[in-house]
Each structure stands twice: as C-alpha cells, then as structure tokens.
C-alpha cells in the first residue's frame, strides 16, 4: 500500500464541506430512513457491522442519479438504528473519501452535493469520539455483501474524480440495469484497468484501516500502514491475553466452575445492563424453586450473603420466579419488596 495514499487521506478527511445545513438536514434524514430500511430489510440473521459500511449499490446509484425511491420492505424492529449513528457512520466513511479540491463535475454535481451534505452535518461531532460508541455498538448488521458491491459504491462516491470502468461493470452485475458512470481520472494517475483495480483495492483497504485506527486506542496519531498494523496486532494480542488471564483467575477463584453467577452478578451490578440478572437471582434463592439440581446448602448460604451485599443498583428491583432461561429477558419490578422480605425470613430460618 502506498504511504502517499494514506497520507493523502489524512488531510482530506478533515476537510469540511461548506454545504448549507438546512437542505442537507432534510435530505440526510430521508437518507437515514432509506439506509435504515435497506439495512434491516432483506437479510435474515444478525448482521455485521460492515453493513454500516456499505450502501447497497442501488442506494449509491440513487444518490448519483436521482432515480426514484426504492421500495422498502418492512422494518425488523430489533435492528432499529438510531439515526445519528447511521449518519455518523456515513460521515466517517465519506470523510475518508472526501474528494479533493478538484472541480465537481456538472452532471452529478447535485447528487454529490447531497452526499457531501452528510459529512457537513455530522462532522460537527468529532469523528473519533462518535465512532467509538458506534462501533462498540455491536457493529453487527447485515452480513457484508460482496466486496465488489462496496467497490462500486466507493467508486460512486469518488465518482467525480476517477474513471471507473470496473464500477460500471459491477453495476451491471446487479439485478438492475444501471448506466455506465463516466468519470474523469485523477490527475497524474494511470488509467489502465489493472491500476484502477489496484487503486480501488487500496482504497478499500485504507478505508477499513481508518476504521480500525479509530477503534484501536492511540492509533489516531500514527500515520503509516505498517505502524498502524503494529498497533492493531498489539491490541488484539493484549485482548487475547486478557481473556486467558481472566479465565485463569476465574478458575483459580472457584473450586467449581459452576458459579452461582446470579448472585455474583447481583453483587456486582454496576457495569453491565443488569435488568436481567436480578431475575436470575430469584429462582436460586428459593429452595422450592430449585432449577438446578446440584444446589447445595452452602451455596445457598453463599447466595444469601451475596444478596445482602449493600451494593444493590437500581436495576436490582426485578425478581422473578421463573426459570433462568425465561427469566433472563424479563423482570418484574412489583415483586421487589415482597421478595426481599422473604429473603430475610429465609436467612433467619437457616
């Protein structure tokens, strides 16, 4: 990969597009909706973050050619995306591809304006900080489509500044008959298909590298692919080592693997989203509702001790008597006080 390309994308990413926010806003909202629909619609399973990265090519073509709206299938509710994150994600992508100062061509000018208004609107959020929550949101959308489609989309975004034969070719591979996109080559760059393909590949890799840079802490200031890769490798290695270390600690701490996790998690409620855990706690508390057969007496006492830890968070209010399998995703706040009383009683009995 060329260092120059990477250095080139750096300054480019910080250029702001001077578009008026009002017009951009409406368009971007509609854009959000469309992306939203398209992302959630066809694909079955839980998804990959890369769908955030990808516009379906039809969407990209629409941007450039003002084709009529695509029909959107019904939303899958689980995959609702808050509009900001989608637009932020797009902003980071587009900022990576922010065109140079070369003149915007006439024909696709209006469409590109629409595209550019996205970064204008959202670049007010600092990119790195807003990307963090986005990516730590499990990043898993629809499974990434073929890299070919992404290649095409990227070419559309850069459409104004590069010739893209391969893009046109790929656009025909899709179900729709899309016209060729004729664009100018960048100044001083070769235009044969090999170098185009290589350049496209490099652009793709660089785009992903940027995302990785923003994900891995401390990578932002580093320039140069090799060093960034170094950091990424270090990060992955350290995470893997942490997993090993933590599992060793867990093994050492407990003579039995069968943690009574419920009570532990009840005691340590803070950092996770714990509305589920208290509901796991309850079934274990009650001797008559023994879901797991190998509960021994000492374990139950351990539970009770754990319960009476002072560290009850706000989420601890739910207790259920249903089995752990069901209980994980439901909690009932009304049972709270009653159950606490009963806990006290049980402890005294023991």
């Amino acid at each position: 990969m060329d260092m120059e390309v990477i250095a080139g994308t750096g300054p480019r990413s910080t250029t702001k597009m001077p578009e008026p926010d009002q017009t951009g806003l409406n368009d971007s909202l509609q854009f959000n909706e469309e992306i939203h629909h398209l992302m959630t619609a066809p694909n079955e399973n839980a998804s990959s973050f890369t769908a955030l990265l990808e516009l379906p090519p039809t969407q990209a073509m629409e941007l450039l050619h003002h084709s009529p709206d695509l029909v959107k299938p019904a939303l899958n509710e689980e995959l609702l995306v808050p509009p900001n994150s989608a637009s932020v994600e797009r902003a980071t992508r587009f900022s990576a591809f922010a065109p140079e100062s070369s003149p915007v061509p006439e024909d696709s000018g209006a469409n590109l304006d629409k595209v550019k208004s996205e970064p204008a609107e959202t670049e007010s959020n600092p990119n790195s900080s807003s990307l963090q929550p986005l990516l730590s949101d499990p990043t898993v959308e629809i499974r990434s489509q073929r890299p070919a489609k992404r290649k095409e989309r990227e070419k559309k975004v850069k459409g104004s500044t590069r010739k893209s034969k391969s893009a046109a070719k790929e656009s025909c591979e899709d179900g729709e008959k899309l016209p060729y996109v004729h664009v100018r080559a960048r100044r001083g760059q070769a235009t044969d298909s090999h170098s185009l393909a290589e350049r496209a590949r490099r652009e793709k890799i660089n785009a992903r590298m940027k995302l990785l840079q923003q994900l891995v802490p401390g990578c932002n200031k580093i320039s140069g692919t090799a060093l960034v890769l170094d950091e990424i490798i270090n990060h992955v290695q350290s995470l893997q080592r942490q997993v090993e270390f933590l599992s060793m600690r867990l093994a050492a701490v407990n003579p039995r693997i069968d943690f009574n996790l419920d009570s532990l998690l009840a005691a340590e409620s803070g950092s996770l989203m714990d509305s589920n855990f208290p509901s796991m706690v309850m079934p274990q508390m009650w001797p008559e509702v023994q879901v797991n057969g190998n509960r021994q007496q000492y374990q139950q006492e351990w539970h009770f001790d754990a319960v009476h830890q002072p560290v009850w968070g706000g989420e601890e209010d739910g207790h259920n008597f249903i089995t752990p399998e069901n209980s994980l995703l439901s909690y009932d706040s009304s049972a709270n006080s009653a159950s606490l009383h009963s806990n006290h009683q049980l402890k005294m009995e023991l």
Partner: protein
Amino acid sequence: MRSSSSLKRDFLKKWVTSLQICSFSIRGTSVLERKKAIKLSADLAMASARKGTTCWSRALIANASKDDNNKVLIEHILGSHEYERSKQASIGSLMCNKRIRCKKILKKSFRMRRVPKKSCEPRMVIASSLAKRFIKKRTQFLRSLVPGGEFMDDISLMEETLDYIVSLRAQVDVMKTLVCATELVNCN
C-alpha cells in the same frame, strides 16, 4: 443494530449455560483444566453470539469442534440445528479455503513474472518495497491471530479484525465484571 450491551448480555447468557454444563464433567481437576474449560466456553459463547455471520466466529467454532471432547458443549451452545449447519458449513468452507489458497498461489506466480517498474528512482523503489514487506509481514501475523485469518483476503481480514476486536472487548468486559464480583463475594 445490536448495542454492545445486548451483545454482552447474549454472551453472558450463553457462557453461563455452558459453564453449567462444563461443571458436570469437570470436577476437582487442576486449575489449568478449569481454565481451559472456562476459556473455551467463553470463546464459544462469543462466537455463537455472532450467529455465523462472521468468518472468524465460524472458524473458531470449527476449530473447537475438531476436538471430540467439546462436541457436547458446542452442540448445547449452538443449539443442535445450528450445530449441524455449522458442521456442513465448515466442510464447505474447507473446500472454499482450498480453492482460495490455490487461486492465491496462481496469482502470486503471475505477479512474479510481471516486470517491476523502473520509472521511479531507486530510492523510492527500495522504500516502497520495504514498506510493502513490512506490511506483508504484519498482515501475515494478523492472520495468525484472528481465527480463520489464513483463508481471508486482505479486505475481509480487516473487516473480520474489526469485528473480532469488538467481540473480544465485550468478552473481556464481561469476564472482568465476573471476576470482580466473584472476588467481592469471596472476600465477605
């Protein structure tokens, strides 16, 4: 889009159930055995939280299922239906991987024959070739880190790494919380 907390919740749920299964088979064994079981169940739970959408998760599950001891565990974590699917998928992916590797070998041999360009000055050529070598070495190494990395091309390697890092982070967070909670309880 799944939030990170839902990922963690998913992971924790699966991990808990798998640990309970493990506990029946492993009792009073050495710390190392327990640690291995814990780590294995954690990894499998995280991989299955992705539900087969990412390459690294499939590769991780495939590697784990090579060992016969783990079959019961895997089957439970995945659910038998998905387990069967993953077995078929792994066979299919092995074939794909062989094809990919053959293609790569072919491409490399073609590339060798291409004449390197002499248009730039020798210094730049050296610098860029050095850079390329560095990058190549590092991507090789990254491939060895990410499960299933040897079979991906550069682009999907980056995507998989991204997803892998996110999942690892969630896993570490959950495990840390658990460790703290355990130690807290044990102190009292």
